[in-house]
């Protein structure tokens, strides 16, 4: 049977029995793909249409003669989207680096050092990784306002690092533990300190893990609305992209010319990352499976 399949595949595949047997599968996958890409495509097309066209005709009537960048200019000029973009960078990059740096130290201790309580702490960590962040919001909000940290990015970096840690440590530990034991043993025999082993051996060999964690955490923080909304509030000077857009939605309701462009500005960087580093992103998801 297997042999027969191969022969079929080598002969003209378009007219083979296999092709016709698989035809429903092809059609179903094609249909699903179209359905999945259609919503985003509709918005992208609309973001390049003039205001009166968006409001009065369907996006499927788009013709290249009406192509315009006016919507993008409008949101950048009038709605501080440029500032929100910079705010998002200012929020996301430090938060991501802080999480990964702290997590890799802890993960290294969990994988290559022996100490009492190691198992217990790690078990708690696994349990914490699915605690809903809503548990932390109330008390931390009070704590931050007592410390006069609300509306400040420091508060959000720390918060994101805290809630991202269980997953990040879990992921990094999985990668570190998979490294060959002999590598570390021979390094220690040669007189290397844990510091040297960490920086010369563990980190360089875990670049894929670091990359996948970085992309994961970056997207998580970049796309987050709830935490930014609660700790930073909506003041334009500190509003990040999701917050700015949710305000646009509230303010303009159906002001599609602004919403479509704003949504794409917020999607640009994550989508770029997604398409260029998809492999690492998938790796991270597969290694972790559960993100809090």
């Amino acid at each position, binding site marked *: 049977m297997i042999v027969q399949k191969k022969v079929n595949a080598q002969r003209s595949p378009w007219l083979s029995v296999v092709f016709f047997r*698989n035809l429903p*599968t*092809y059609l179903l*996958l094609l249909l*699903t793909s179209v359905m*999945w890409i259609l*919503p985003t495509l*509709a*918005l992208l097309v609309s973001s390049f249409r003039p205001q009166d066209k968006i409001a009065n005709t*369907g*996006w*499927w009537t788009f013709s290249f003669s009406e192509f315009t960048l006016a919507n993008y200019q409008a949101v950048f000029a009038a709605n501080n989207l440029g500032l929100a973009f*910079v705010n998002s*960078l*200012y929020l996301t990059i*430090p938060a991501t*680096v802080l999480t990964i740096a*702290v997590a890799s*130290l*802890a993960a290294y*201790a969990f994988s290559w*050092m022996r100490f009492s309580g190691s198992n217990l*702490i790690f078990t708690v960590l696994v349990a914490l*990784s699915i*605690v*809903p*962040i809503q*548990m*932390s*919001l*109330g*008390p931390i909000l009070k704590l931050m306002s*007592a410390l006069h940290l609300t509306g400040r990015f420091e508060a959000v970096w720390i918060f994101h690092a*805290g*809630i991202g840690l*269980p997953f990040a*440590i879990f992921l990094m530990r999985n990668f570190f533990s998979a490294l060959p034991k002999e590598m570390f043993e021979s390094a220690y025999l040669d007189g290397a*300190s844990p510091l040297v082993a960490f920086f010369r051996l563990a980190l360089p060999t875990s670049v894929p893990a670091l990359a996948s964690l970085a992309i994961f955490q970056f*997207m998580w923080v*970049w796309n987050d609305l*709830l935490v930014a909304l*609660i700790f930073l509030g909506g003041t334009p000077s500190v509003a990040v*992209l*999701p917050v700015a*857009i*949710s305000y646009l939605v509230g303010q303009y309701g*159906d002001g*599609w010319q602004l919403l*479509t462009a*704003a949504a794409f500005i917020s*999607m640009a960087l*994550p989508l770029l990352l*997604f398409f260029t580093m*998809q492999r690492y*992103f*998938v790796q991270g*998801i*597969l290694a972790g*499976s*559960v993100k809090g």
Partner: protein
Amino acid sequence: MLEKLVLAFLIPVLIVGGLLFYLYLGEALIARLPRSRQGAIRPWIWLSPALLLLVVIMVWPLLQSFVASFQHVTGDAVTGPFVGIQNYITAFTDPQMLGSMVNNLYWIVFFTGVTVCGGLALAVLVNRVKYGGPVKTILFMPMAISFVATGVIWRFMYAYRPEDAPQIGTLNAVVTGLFHIPPVAWIFQQPGNNLALIVVGVWMFTGFCLVILNAGLRSLPEEVHEAARVDGATEWQVFSRITVPLLAPTISVVATTMVINALKMFDIVYVMTAGNFGTDVIANQIYKQLYSSRDLGMASTLAVILLVVIFPFMVQNVRRFHAQENR
């Protein structure tokens, strides 16, 4: 603005530098200790930044929420008088909060059902064709889009115009143009609007299920499937009697993740309807209690209820972890 942009790249350098300094300092201090003690103290130096953050951001608030859930805490107060289980009674009797819990049940059933079953079906189909890669990418792409942008995308899909006006929303164009029935106010009409929101969640998370289930599928031994086919099993029999049982552990991981997502769902509801028109969910209620009503006691109670529901999954998560470790 420029200053912030520079800082966005400078502060990470400072963070890494600070941690390096801390680590070198710690190692230098350890080096002065007798060798026998070094091994016992070193792990704690490497762990303490993480432990400090975890205790402050996760463990302490967890305990704090438990305590506050039995208190009446409003306004700027950090603590208040104990009221016993009053908050819990309110949570389970107030029609609005009860409604949001019922909506979370809808989310659990339909969102989990469709994402997992759809993801599984697609994972099997994608494996059978040569060009599965692009399909996976397209379905997975919504994972990179924020909930807020997704909200905008789908509000546009659901956009509603009166019957005589030209429709600009894709779905209503299909409904009016193809089926010749009046346009539907998808996200405003109860009870269907909850399903309309769940469709958005399905759009976002089916790709996630697909990717994980597909990876699980590829790790299964192909010979078992071939053997069954040689023995004359139909494709459906192979799927239901061999693939699904073998894949059960992965399916359970994915289903668990989706149930937790359904319970925590906030952003989609917040952006699409702000919880109006009977679409409120628990996470959205917590936000409202915290921000609009400024009632920390009530918000904590809802958070504790959420945690209690999630607790069995936590236990299962830990069990699975230990089973994997001991293998």
